[in-house]
Structure formats: structure tokens, C-alpha cells
């Protein structure tokens, strides 16, 4: 069968309706950063509800929102505010978002006035990053050859 004939037949058979996929795919790609976090949060809540044999309706009642709102969150497509995350964490007694703790210690060294516009020059900044397992605690030193990008910050 000639290829032109196939395309013509397909065009006749096809609906004039547009698929929403291309638009949805573009939206998912553009919002991938927060979307993935929203999905992880949704999964953690769903697993908690399952273990505790709690319904979405019960969670909704606990925090005073509609079951529809909880359902939207559990699909992993809501751009959640910090306030909503905190309310959910408090209601379920779980941590949904954890910020790695940084302890910054700075060592100052006195510089001669002629060499530096400022009285003190920071010579070393050490970030001590406390990571959960399996990474353990690690220390990232500014100025290390492998961490030049941190120094630029």
C-alpha cells in the first residue's frame, strides 16, 4: 500500500479532537522539580494511612479539610505550602520534609589593613552536613578542590 494512501486514510479515520497528552507532558516536565517532591510526600502519607488503617476521610476530618482536598494531595500533584506540610506532619506525627542540618563555623584571621579592605578575612568555612543513613555524617570543606562550586556560593 502506498504510504500517501495510508496517511490519507488515517486522516479520514482520525478524530478532530486534540489529545491532552502533549500539553500534560509539557506541564509535567516544566514542574518536575516540585512534582517529584509532592509525589514522595503523597506516597509517605498513603503508606502511613495504610499501616494505621486510616481512611482519607478520617485524615480530612482531623485537619479540617474536605476529603476531595486530601485526595488531590494523595495523587501527588499538589504544590503544597509549608503550612499544609506542617499541618499534615503534626496530624500524622511523621516527618514529610527534612532539611539537612548545617553547622557553620568560621575561622577568622586578622589581616593587615593594606592587604584587605575589610578588617578580617574569612580564611576557612566548614560546613558540617549531617546526613541520614546510608550516607552518614560528612564534612564538606569550602575550598577543597572537589567543592569549588560551594566556594562560589
Amino acid at each position, binding site marked *: *500500500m502506498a*504510504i500517501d494512501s*495510508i*496517511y490519507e*486514510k*488515517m*486522516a479520514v*479515520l*482520525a*478524530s478532530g*479532537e*486534540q*489529545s*491532552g*497528552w*502533549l500539553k*500534560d*507532558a*509539557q506541564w*509535567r*516536565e516544566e514542574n*518536575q522539580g516540585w*512534582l*517529584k517532591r509532592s*509525589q*514522595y510526600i*503523597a*506516597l509517605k502519607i*498513603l*503508606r502511613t494511612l*495504610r499501616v494505621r488503617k486510616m481512611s482519607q476521610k478520617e485524615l480530612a476530618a482531623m485537619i479540617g479539610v474536605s476529603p476531595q482536598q486530601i*485526595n488531590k494531595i*494523595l*495523587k*501527588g*500533584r499538589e504544590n503544597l505550602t509549608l503550612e499544609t506540610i506542617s499541618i499534615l506532619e503534626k496530624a500524622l506525627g511523621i516527618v514529610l520534609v527534612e532539611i539537612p542540618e548545617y553547622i557553620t563555623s568560621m575561622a577568622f584571621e586578622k589581616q593587615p589593613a593594606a592587604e584587605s579592605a575589610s578588617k578580617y578575612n574569612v580564611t576557612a568555612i566548614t560546613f558540617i552536613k549531617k546526613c541520614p543513613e546510608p550516607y552518614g555524617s560528612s564534612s564538606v570543606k569550602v575550598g577543597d578542590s572537589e567543592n569549588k562550586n560551594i566556594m562560589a556560593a
Partner: protein
Amino acid sequence: MRLIPIFPRNTPAIYSVHYPDQREDEMSRLFDEWSDIEYLESFFEQNKADLCGGYIGCPTVDEAVHRIIDDAVRLEKRLYDLAKKGQQDHNNTLQTLFSPLNNEIRLAEQQKSKAKIIAFKRSSWLRLYAIRIASNLYVITGGAIKLTHRMEERDHTQIELFKLDKKKTYLQENGLYSETDFQILET
């Protein structure tokens, strides 16, 4: 049953089937489903026993959901890139994405096909099923999360075979069948 153009003007051309009992066409429905955490968590809870059946160890439900999230993003990105750029990059074509459903090497017209992505040196569970009408003309008939070796082993994959056959008949009845090009494929 309607045929919805996904990117009909580009090369390759892809159409997706819209079944009367569904709100969206299959391509939209599947990627929507594969990014719906409530659906995925429930699916893997129901099919938990199949997670330990293969060569992939025994992932937990949480791990399985994370895996689908990542694989769906990759598969969608490949298709989106193809839709945007057409088939300019010869390393990223539908022919490299889809393979014959029966693992046959030959490329016969209107063969069933499956689209599967290889990520982290492991096989994906995600499947898009399509019928190749001509070298660059594909019709997506459905898709599934396939955890078992054979499609006949589970209802949700068995139904995809049924959909492929039904669509094949429909295309044949409308004169879109030729012995040399027709191919049934999967990702």
C-alpha cells in the same frame, strides 16, 4: 472507539485510541495514571506478590512506586522529545523505543509492538502497546505495568492483548492493512 492524533504531522506520526468508556485517549490516560501516586500505591499493594517473581529481587511497594515515577518521566520525555523534534536524531526513534510484542526480529506491517525503556541497566515494567501501520505511523492501543513474564498471566495485561486484537481488526476493516508493514509492538 476514536483515533486521536498525538503528533500526526511529524515523522513519526502517532495516534492514540480513545475508548468510549474512558475520559481520555490511551496515551493521556496512561501517563496520567503513571504519575498518580494513589493509583500506583494501590496497584502495587494489589500486585505485591508479583514484585518478588522476577529477576529484580524483591522491591517493596515504596520502591516499586518510586521506580514507576522515574521510568514514566523517562519514557514520557523520550516521546515528548520525538514529538517536538521529529525523528532527526537517528539514535532516538520510535523504532529504537518499540520492539515487536512477540520478540520477533522481523518488521512486518501492522505488527503489535511494545515500548519499553531501559534504565539503570534494568528493564522497565512500563509498557505502551502499539500497532505499526507503516514505517513511521503508529497507533497506541493501550499500556500497562507488566510484572509477569507473559501477558496472559494477569487480567490487566490480558486485556491489553484483547485491545490490540480489536484495534487490529478495526484497522483492517478500514483498509489499513498490508502484509508487509503491519506490526504489533510494545515499548
